[in-house]
């Protein structure tokens, strides 16, 4: 009578897992290709402002980054709580921006140099004074294509 009882002794065949490595490898390759290692370690904290009219930055190799914000906790004792600029891996003054841009430009391919873009990642609570200083330095350095890095407003 017990048509549905499980006493029938039917055993599930073991799942064939021999293709599992292949599956995982596919995933692995996907991530290996899409990954970009973070090149700089951030020493300043920033939350980019929000906006709606955003444009994507297309070619990563053409983009130079300038960060500005308050130093992270481990550097706060040394650098104070004031807004600082970070270029590459170290804190910098506005006067150093021009050299930095020149250096970055020199390391680019010659045909790419006119398309150099500077992306400014600046904390949203920053005062405009420091932003203006950066902008003036960029103008002096002839790096006129800039983007104000921002996140999408929900």
């Amino acid at each position: 009578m017990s048509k549905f009882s499980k006493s029938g002794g039917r055993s599930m065949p073991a799942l064939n897992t021999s293709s599992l490595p292949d599956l995982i490898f596919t995933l692995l390759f996907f991530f290996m290709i899409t990954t970009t290692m973070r090149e700089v370690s951030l020493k300043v904290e920033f939350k980019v402002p929000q906006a709606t009219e955003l444009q994507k930055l297309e070619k990563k190799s053409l983009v130079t980054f300038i960060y500005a914000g308050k130093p992270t906790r481990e550097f706060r004792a040394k650098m104070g709580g004031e807004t600082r600029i970070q270029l590459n891996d170290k804190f910098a003054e506005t006067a150093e921006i021009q050299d930095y841009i020149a250096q970055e430009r020199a390391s680019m391919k010659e045909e790419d140099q006119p398309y150099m873009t500077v992306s400014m990642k600046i904390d949203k609570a920053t005062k405009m004074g420091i932003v203006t200083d950066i902008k003036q330095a960029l103008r002096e350095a002839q790096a006129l294509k800039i983007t104000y890095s921002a996140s999408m407003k929900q």
Partner: protein
Amino acid sequence: MARKKRVVEEVNSSSTADIAFLLLIFFLVTTSMDTDKGLARRLPPPAPKDAPKTDINVKERNVLIVLLNSNNQLMVEGLPLDVKQLCNKAKEFITNPTNSPNLPEVFDVNVAGMGKMKVTTNHVISLQNDRGTEYQAYIEVQNELIRAYNELRDDLASAKFGKPYNALSEDQKKSVQEVYPQKISEAEPKNYGGAK
């Protein structure tokens, strides 16, 4: 003496999955797929140092003065304004639909592919901010101004070509840009009221 046939034992591959998993997790953690986004702007070239300071004469009606003070308050053409209204204000300024004498001069310009268009060729939006202005407020204002231009361009593009601006060909984009050239001037910083 017949040789015994040697059987090569199969390599146990059950752990390759684990190895692959480890690698996968490593790349998952280090990956940063964030694509950078932002407001693209173009800075004016540096002013030559030895050049005498000449104020380019721009008629008052052609300039929309947008001031942002250190308390993040917005003032447009001498009157306080909410950021949300800035987009419409800018649009009205850029197009001058009623040919008002207080808004920029309107010229008839022959634009390739569109024929005669009414263009406020000489309009300039002058954005001035204080050193104490917050960056977020500044970006909001920039955003509204860019939005005004983008919406105008989109409207024109769909009216003339039936497509949004981004879907146009390069030549069509150029014609649209000719009708609505983006002219946002960022003046040298000054101190407007309040915190030093």
